[in-house]
């Protein structure tokens, strides 16, 4: 409970009086009453002298929930949500109309009720730490007392001068040494639209579903949609994988409510996560499976019903290994859908070949306007020997799986990798016979599962049972299973491979195109009811984005490396290749101005003088906060925000944005089928501006300095009169109500007509389309039956082997040669889980960039659980021995979502932070082993950072793993520092330096920035993957 000491209280009171007096402002408060502190009466009538304004939350939680803002005297005094309606039986309203309690059909839009975050919105908007006017740092970076107020004219001119100076350097560099992201692109857009050669450094990523986008790209095609949300009511079993709907929505408002109704409908569910969530506790049911039918083995043929608990704990970042093991079980037990795998998938069987039915092109522009860039040429087999290059359609191409690269060969190779004693054993019995397996087959089988079990923590028997249950949820009658996928594992080094494995798992069982099934993947393009249109802002760096198309794309995770070292995780050679490819061949752009090869090897490859971003709190959302701090001190930093965030504290200039209470606006989430109007509820409170206005003013000022002859366009409307506002609002509605309509018409309701603006406003400014359970949208409907129905990937089928990725191999460490090489590690010992980094191997990840496998498979994270053992069989636990610092870490960290934050948003809102103190959650056994008691202040640390926060002891965290919830604001300890090892110089050598201890509990103090996929195509998600750490009562040496 929040405590105020008497002394603090008196201090607070005197402060209140002093300010009130000097400010001389009255707002009707009777100050004399301060001396007669009496709570207001409990028996008062409802205040009806309020105006209701309809609005919605729009922070990055993924949901959009309805708000009713109660406005009085120019102030939002209360907020309620869509559940705030008259009671049934009152005012002539029938129970049938309003009682959702037993509404199982969802044939009307469910109320979108805000959670505790929405209910703290008023406190947030009226917080005293709102940024009220432009601020300019006059002292030392990071010292908040150095900020002074500036006029808008001065601040805009100050920043424009810096940008103009950066733009001038383009003539020598070939690009503008400025880092920004898509939120600030309007400020640069004018230059780019007029000048295709204009290039800057674009922090590129899909923070939320980057891993999923990467996987989908070749597995099923990026624009494929999964089954509609309520289709899970047609399933026989639902596996809730890494999804905690009690804390985060993963772009499906009311997902928790849907799962609740699923449980009450009697459909079995199992939750598979690294922590015991409220979904696991409350919504999952557990299930049973009769294994006897599926043993395929006489010796174990006794029928046995295996209970599967509602929660299956699985170690962070090993989810892909579990999926691989499940595929293996299904295959070995002959439960795989051979017909589907042969005819609608590609690359499952050895020797597979296909004539592509791709609906996209091998490269160039696709039919819907997106681009598929082809990274090289692909020579098809056979007599024609065609080579595909940019622009050629893939349709009709012959593609086959190279020897050793089919998925079948992959899962069978697991048998060769577990123990040396059985090396050379070849699978024979189970695959084709479906029974009579020899003893050594069984032995091998259990060795494979034994390894997966030690790695994931899921017992062998439960891996088997879960696999069989998933494949045959109704036993002999078959049945269909659905995977409800969360986002956590996709935000890891091996996230794309996990997502791809889930797609494969669904295809192996033959559920991909069935009602009640689906291919198992949630993506931003499939919000709510899976009917929204294709998402333009997919994670492809080569998309047709008019604002960033000619930029140099750098991964957001690791942006600080560009500022600090001039290079990111990639090798210099690879970076030059990538940048040249990105910046050439599009709309007349060329890479000719870039002379990257001539940059001296001891000079930074890329430079960044100015950094600019908005409302991202980027220190806290990007891995390795200590690097962000050091980078911020090096570049000129410009921040837009509404609060003095930890990131803003390190800015040179801060532009204060206005809030959604203070203007008319709309919100949806991507092209989702829900649209809210956010009504203007109050007048602007401070000397703030709309973000678009700020960008316009900046564009104008830069143009005045450079005289490039660029038309900066018309200013967005600021403080328009009512008539103008109405025109704008209607025009905006016309645009925003359209994206989902064609998809909805085509897939759900051919008679659908989007409501007019007047109808929309009659519905309190809310548009909502639903897909009833009995009209499920099946994402891959007709896929099985129609030979001409192809996907947008390279082959038109579900790819287990991806020709596209074959052409863009990653750089990997070859322990034989001791060097980084490009390609796939076929020429080294085929180690399923990647080469084990030993003390003699360098302190680098196995893969530095590029696609890591052309065949779907599990790969380990560089600092994964495999590295905690001295042997490849995972039997001798030693802890992770860091080759960088020499320290040993025996725990893994993970960063769950917090209840009280939407990423970093709301962490400064005391009313909910008081209830959810930031802490490190750890298992009782781990705490006891370290002498830690509940509530003790402890240090959580690894090579990258150190934080000091309270410990919370709970069995909801698995032994060996600690959880620091994501998004808490960094706050440096006034005196304490700790040693960290950071590769902040061009040499790549990790230097030992002292950095402040964080007392805020910012999870990205611990996370590793040194990972990426290929910024050329698709980028990684937010870096919140697991890795090694230690927790101690005493500060580490």
């Amino acid at each position, binding site marked *: 409970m929040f405590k105020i000491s008497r002394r603090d209280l008196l201090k*607070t009171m005197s402060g209140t009086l002093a300010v009130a007096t000097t400010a001389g402002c009255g707002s009707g408060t009777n100050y004399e009453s301060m001396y007669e502190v009496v709570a207001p009466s409990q028996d008062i009538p409802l205040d009806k002298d309020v105006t209701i304004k309809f609005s919605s939350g729009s922070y990055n939680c993924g949901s959009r929930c309805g708000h009713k803002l109660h406005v009085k005297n120019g102030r939002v005094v209360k907020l309620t949500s869509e559940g705030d309606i008259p009671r049934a039986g009152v005012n002539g309203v029938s129970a049938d109309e309003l009682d959702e309690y037993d509404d199982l059909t969802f044939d009307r839009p469910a109320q979108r009720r805000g959670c505790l975050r929405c209910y703290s919105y008023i406190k947030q908007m009226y917080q005293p730490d709102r940024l009220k006017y432009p601020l300019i740092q006059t002292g030392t970076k990071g010292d908040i007392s150095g900020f002074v107020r500036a006029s808008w004219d001065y601040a805009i001119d100050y920043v424009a001068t810096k940008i103009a100076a950066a733009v001038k350097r383009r003539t020598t560099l070939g690009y503008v040494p400025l880092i920004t992201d898509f939120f600030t692109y309007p400020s640069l857009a004018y230059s780019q639209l007029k000048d295709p050669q204009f290039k800057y450094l674009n922090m590129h990523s899909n923070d939320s579903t980057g891993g999923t986008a990467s996987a989908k790209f070749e597995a099923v095609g990026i624009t494929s949609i999964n089954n509609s949300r309520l289709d899970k009511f047609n399933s026989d079993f639902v596996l809730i994988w890494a999804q905690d709907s009690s804390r985060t929505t993963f772009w499906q408002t009311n997902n928790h409510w849907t799962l609740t109704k699923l449980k009450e409908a009697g459909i079995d569910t199992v939750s598979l996560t690294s922590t015991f969530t409220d979904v696991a506790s409350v919504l999952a049911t557990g299930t049973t499976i009769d294994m006897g039918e599926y043993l395929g083995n006489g010796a174990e043929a006794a029928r046995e019903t295996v209970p599967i608990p509602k929660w299956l704990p699985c170690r962070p970042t090993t989810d892909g290994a579990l999926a691989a093991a499940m595929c293996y079980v299904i295959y070995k037990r002959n439960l795989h859908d051979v017909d589907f795998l042969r005819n609608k998938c590609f690359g499952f069987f050895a020797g597979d070949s296909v004539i592509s039915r791709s609906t996209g092109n091998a490269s160039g522009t696709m039919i819907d306007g997106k681009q598929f860039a082809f990274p090289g040429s692909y020579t098809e087999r056979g007599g024609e020997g065609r080579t595909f290059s940019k622009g050629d359609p893939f349709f009709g191409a012959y593609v086959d799986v190279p020897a050793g690269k089919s998925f079948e060969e992959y899962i069978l190779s697991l048998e060769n990798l577990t123990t040396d004693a059985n090396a050379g054993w070849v699978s024979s019995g189970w695959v084709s016979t479906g029974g009579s397996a020899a003893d050594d087959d069984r032995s091998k089988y259990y060795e494979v599962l034994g390894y997966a079990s030690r790695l994931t923590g899921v017992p062998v028997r439960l891996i088997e049972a879960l696999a069989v249950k998933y494949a045959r949820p109704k036993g002999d009658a078959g049945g269909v299973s659905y995977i409800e996928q969360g986002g956590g594992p996709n935000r890891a080094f091996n996230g794309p491979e996990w997502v791809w494995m889930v797609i494969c798992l669904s295809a192996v069982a033959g559920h991909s195109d069935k009602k009640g099934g689906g291919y198992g993947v949630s993506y931003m393009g499939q919000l709510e009811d899976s009917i929204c249109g294709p998402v333009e802002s997919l994670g492809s760096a080569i998309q047709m984005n008019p604002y960033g198309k000619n930029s140099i794309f750098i991964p957001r995770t690791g942006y600080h490396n560009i500022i600090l070292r001039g290079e990111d995780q990639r090798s210099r050679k690879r970076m030059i290749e990538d940048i040249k490819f990105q910046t050439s061949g599009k709309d007349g752009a060329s890479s000719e101005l870039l002379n990257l090869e001539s940059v001296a090897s001891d000079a930074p490859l890329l430079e960044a003088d100015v950094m600019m971003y908005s409302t991202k709190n980027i220190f806290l959302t990007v891995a390795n906060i200590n690097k962000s701090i050091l980078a911020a001190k090096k570049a000129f930093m410009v921040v837009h925000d509404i609060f003095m965030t930890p990131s803003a504290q390190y800015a040179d200039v801060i532009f204060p944005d206005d809030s959604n209470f203070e203007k008319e606006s709309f919100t949806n989430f991507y092209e989702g089928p829900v649209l809210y109007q956010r009504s203007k509820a109050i007048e602007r409170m401070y000397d703030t501006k709309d973000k678009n206005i700020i960008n316009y003013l900046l564009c104008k000022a830069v143009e005045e300095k450079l005289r490039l002859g660029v038309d900066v366009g018309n200013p967005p409307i600021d403080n328009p009169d009512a008539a103008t506002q109405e025109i704008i609002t209607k025009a905006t509605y016309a645009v925003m109500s359209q994206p989902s309509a064609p998809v909805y018409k085509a897939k759900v309701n051919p008679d659908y007509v989007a409501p007019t603006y007047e109808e929309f406003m009659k519905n309190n400014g809310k548009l909502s389309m639903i897909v009833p359970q009995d009209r499920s949208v099946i994402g891959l409907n007709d896929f099985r039956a129609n030979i001409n129905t192809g996907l947008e990937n390279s082959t038109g089928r579900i790819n287990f082997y991806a020709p596209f990725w074959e052409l863009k191999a990653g750089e990997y460490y070859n322990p034989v040669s001791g060097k980084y090489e490009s390609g796939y590690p076929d020429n080294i010992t085929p180690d399923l889980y990647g080469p084990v980094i030993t003390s003699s191997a360098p302190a680098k990840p196995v893969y530095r960039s590029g696609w890591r496998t052309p065949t779907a498979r599990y790969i380990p994270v560089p600092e994964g659980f495999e590295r905690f053992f001295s042997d490849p069989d995972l039997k001798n636990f030693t802890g992770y021995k860091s080759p960088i610092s020499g320290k040993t870490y025996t725990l893994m960290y993970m960063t769950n979502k917090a209840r009280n934050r939407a990423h970093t948003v709301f962490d400064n809102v005391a009313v909910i932070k008081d209830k959810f103190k930031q802490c490190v959650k750890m298992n009782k056994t781990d705490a006891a082993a370290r002498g830690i008691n509940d509530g003790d202040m402890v240090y959580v640390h690894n090579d990258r950072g150190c934080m000091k926060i309270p410990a919370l002891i709970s069995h909801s965290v698995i032994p060996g793993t600690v959880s620091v919830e994501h998004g808490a604001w960094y706050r440096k300890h006034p005196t304490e520092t700790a040693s960290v090892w950071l590769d902040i110089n061009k040499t790549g050598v990790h230097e030992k330096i002292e950095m402040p201890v964080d007392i805020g509990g910012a999870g990205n103090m611990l996370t590793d920035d040194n990972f990426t996929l290929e910024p050329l195509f698709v980028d990684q998600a937010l870096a919140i993957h697991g890795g090694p750490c230690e927790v101690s009562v005493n500060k580490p040496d």
Partner: protein
Amino acid sequence: MNQWGFFFNQDRCLGCNTCMMACKNWNDDKRGDLYVNQYDAKDYSVAVNANERESIYLDPVTKATNYTNLGRYHMKEDWRRVSTKETGSTVLAGDYTFVATINTAHLTVSCNHCDEPACVAACPMGCISKEQSMGAVITNPEACISCGKCRQACPWDAPQYYDVNFANYNIDDPARPRMTKCNFCKERIEEGLKPACVAACWNRALDAGPIEDLKKKYADKGYIITQTIPGQFEELSTKPNILFKLKES
């Protein structure tokens, strides 16, 4: 009198605390320190730049955002409280696999507006009473002497103070916290609305209404209705007006 009560479906509660936040949101203007710690009088209506910069942004020691300062402006009393009971364990078995028997169950309680409220009996000043229209137990803070006897008497901590050290204040201290508590959102009920917590409940686990109606409504759904939760809400003589559907697994 048509006695009102709550219904709580423990099998749905996700422990999200939205009920508690909605309560604080709705009743913020009824909190005990409203006249001590309100910001609408100064913090946002003053002229821009009139705030002393450091007092808003800085902790004088750590030079970080002044969280203590931000914490002044919200309702400290927890008229509604969510608690969680954790049972079982998650331990490591041989071969680094997990054996999990852990389970959790949430409970949200405000005031149960008992038939025989212990707080009413305990109050030496007679400030707490049971009103007649819906049986809500309400208080009159004006006469409260902050003795804490009501809080001691209540098995569920329904009587709340904005400062837990309420007993340390002098009787004539203008900042002395008076007891406040859930008033069943009586003003909302009278207008045909639901209590703020019920209207907000994120997973539709809470309901409120005339207690006899609730009993019938949920019995008709086939629920086994109880009036206690073993280990979390024991049987007591005050006759609380709350019904439960227990968490099943």
